[in-house]
């Protein structure tokens, strides 16, 4: 996956977790929780979906790296380099 595809993958996961949110204008550099309603249980859902869909295990100490879409791309780039994008929604 490229960095852009990683952003698509994360947005796709968020769309499943927060189906009432409009993700079309998310700013990649701003904390996700400052832009949409996401609480700690939602965040654990993101981690769970990364585990289920891509086999990525994110240790708790690294959760802070996933605060923004940009952060997700930075952190997951090496983990997802050889993975293919799976999209459940049209995010």
């Amino acid at each position, binding site marked *: 996956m490229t960095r852009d595809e990683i952003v698509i993958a994360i947005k796709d996961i968020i769309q499943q*977790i*927060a*189906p*009432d949110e409009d993700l079309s204008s998310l700013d990649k550099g701003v904390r996700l929780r400052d832009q949409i*309603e996401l609480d700690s*249980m939602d965040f*654990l*859902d993101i981690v*769970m979906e990364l*585990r*289920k869909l891509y086999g990525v*295990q994110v240790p708790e100490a690294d959760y802070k790296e996933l605060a923004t879409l940009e952060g997700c791309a930075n952190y997951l780039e090496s983990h997802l380099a050889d993975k293919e994008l799976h999209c459940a929604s049209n995010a």
Partner: protein
Amino acid sequence: MALEPIAITGVGLASPNGLSLKEFRANLLTGKSGVRPWTIPIFGDTLAGICGFDPLRHQSKKELRRGTRAGSISVWCAHEALADAGIALEGLDRGRVGIYIGTTEHGNVETETEVLNLRQYGDDVRYWSHHHNPRTVANNPAGEVTLSLGITGPAYCMGGACAAGNLGLIQGVQMLQLGIVDCAIAGGVSESPRAFGIFASFHAQGALATHADPTKASRPFDRARNGIVVSEGGCLYTLERVSDAKRRGARILAIVSGYAVNSDAADFVLPDSDGQERCMRLALAHAGLEPGEIDVVNTHATSTPSGDVVECAAIRRVFASADKVLVNNTKSFIGHTMGAAGALELAGNIPGFEDGFVHPTINVDHLDPECEIPGLVLNTPRAAASQRRILNMSFGMLGINSAVIVERPSL
């Protein structure tokens, strides 16, 4: 101590054959069943009563994803009940509203779902959802209502097997009479058809209904009855002290006259006629009534070969001298809505105070002689213009019995 009478001022319900009291009642008077084919993982094809409400009327997609079916049914019923009662949340002291919901069981559906999910991941517990605990705690259905409505008063569930719907109602009455709350949202719910274990267990017990025509499968008192149809459903009432209801000019649907809960202390599963008789007599004594002052007995009968006979024997003894009492059964239309049953079946009968009919027990092609009771209303509604009081009974495993008596408000 004289306790203030409690009024039922609103009803919110989800039944397999109706999503409002008006629709539910109409289908009970026209013989429309809500039982249908149902397929569930592991167990396979069976029958069930399923409620077709649109949960998005009162919940966001995210709330639905996070919560449980029992929570969703509860949220639906609570919103609908408040609207039916004309109670606006604005201006209401939400700390003085109590939510009391009876459940037969809670957590089976969510646990089974997680176990099946875990199978896909080689039983690696890292794939077990962090949502499991908030979904399976026993107060989940009531808690989801508090989140949806911003209610900050006492909110919890009462586990009472299939007697639970009445327990919620009784708890609401008591909390109002004690002055703990000013409004109670009370009744029972069930999500049971979503759990294969419920079906498998009844099947193993030889107590799960089968029939080529799903609408004929639930047939209490009929000679060919062969078991329970497991159904989901919910019914929550708004309850208020009569003085408060009158002060705000509320429409009063019925007044709770009395109730009782007791235990057989006899068997894990089998009902006990003596325990049921004691429960009915306790409720009559609590209401200060003689059997002849009851007009309608709404039975619990679940369509099992032995259970129906046991209950009929108890009714025969209690109402031996009451030759005008009419007896019916609501499960013949909707199956067994488990934790919702008491509250929901009572709701189906309350409109009789206004429309002057008693709904029948349907699907009785050949009445079992052991279920013969004077006053059984079979297959077609019976006109009974001057109904004053209804006695509803609900019984459950481990020998719990509950009975509630309500009366028409104009008495």
